[in-house]
């Protein structure tokens, strides 16, 4: 038995508040952002460098997974060609909610220098994008900063409320 008195009503309420659950869930979500191993072109090299020991993404809890079913964030690193567009859509659909998309590099943002018939002019024509990283290619620091911004965004979201599924259509 407790030897001291616990006053559950002091400080305006019970010791468990809903915001705490939000915080705990978002803490878990934002600090274990598993990304899909998905390098499409030269930007993929920078993404690999970010994951390797020098820039060390593991300390953000961002570990690259080889399956979309285990991934929370899709980093579109590189040129998205029209032939590949349907595959990125399929991979995105296989990821479980909640999921986020980072478009890395000018190619994924707008088609970049490939202003041609064969390149999708911006990955946001296919999947909804949360963050656009500028650069050709963005430095690993940019990607790290992008992941930190995404973490910030996740922390400011409501965790419990059913998330509105992000779909283009």
């Amino acid at each position: 038995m407790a030897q001291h008195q616990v006053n559950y009503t002091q400080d305006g309420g019970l010791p468990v508040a809903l915001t705490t659950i939000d915080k705990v869930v978002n803490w878990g979500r934002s600090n274990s952002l598993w990304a899909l191993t998905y390098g499409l072109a030269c930007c993929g090299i920078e993404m690999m460098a970010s994951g390797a020991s020098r820039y060390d993404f593991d300390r953000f809890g961002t570990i690259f997974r080889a399956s979309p079913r285990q991934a929370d964030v899709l980093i579109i690193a590189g040129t998205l060609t029209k032939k590949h567009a349907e595959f990125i859509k399929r991979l995105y659909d296989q990821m479980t909610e909640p999921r986020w998309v980072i478009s890395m590099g000018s190619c994924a943002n707008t088609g970049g220098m490939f202003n041609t018939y064969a390149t999708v002019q911006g990955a946001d024509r296919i999947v909804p994008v949360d963050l656009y990283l500028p650069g050709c290619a963005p430095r690993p620091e940019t990607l790290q900063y992008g992941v930190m911004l995404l973490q910030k965004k996740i922390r400011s979201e409501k965790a419990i409320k059913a998330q509105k599924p992000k779909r283009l259509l």
Partner: protein
Amino acid sequence: MRRYVPKDDVQKKAYYTDRYWVAPQVPKAKVSSDKVFAEDLKAIKAAFKVFDAYIQVEQMVIYIRPEDNFGVLELMKNKLDYTQLSEMSAVDFLADRGEFDIFYQMLSMKKRKRIRVKCAIKKEEAIESVEKLFRSADWSEREMYDMFGIKVNNHPFFKRILMPDDWEGHPLLKTYPLHGDEFAAWYEVDKIFGKEARDIIGPEIRDDAAVDRYDTKRFARLGHEVPYGADISKGEPAVKTEYQEDDGVFLIERFEKDSSTVITDRDR
């Protein structure tokens, strides 16, 4: 997308009109000036019709009939030691002469010589595959079909190689617009979401220089991010550096330099 201007006459039009300008030509030499080439040409001429032959940049160029392509390459491979087909493709001269030029770049490691075999075919004509002689022709012929629409007979696995199988048009033709035709512009939208989605997704933005400083839906300044769609025409809010520990993340603490110990004595 910019308006599509038909480019059928792109080869007829002179884009540089200096009256005294003469297009530079790589000098051609007679085949008889090189002993090895002269003998090769003699052997080919004995069996096949050769329209023209000359030496350019130490390579012999010969023009043959398109129906002889397999025979000529077989002879060169088996009798004349040209054992490698290093490259082959086509050139679009449709507007100029109504023909494609198909070229085969042959290499002899033994003689240390290269020969370019060329033939011209009309638009709807097909050419015989040389894949049985040179395995390297397999993908090259598929690429030639993909890029120019030239059909190849007796190819073991004849389909597109670079573009998707359901692509329309052949992109290396000079009449093909660089930004793609109507089909190419909507290809991914039509395929993934269906034609009805065209209105929702909208046309491609093909202007590289399109930047709208105040459009916070599509642009953001790094380090000065604002919420999606915020109005910043009256100036952006000041941004200060924030750390995730600041607003008290569970289990994460700020590293305080003063309360830490710095070890200077290595032999401690």
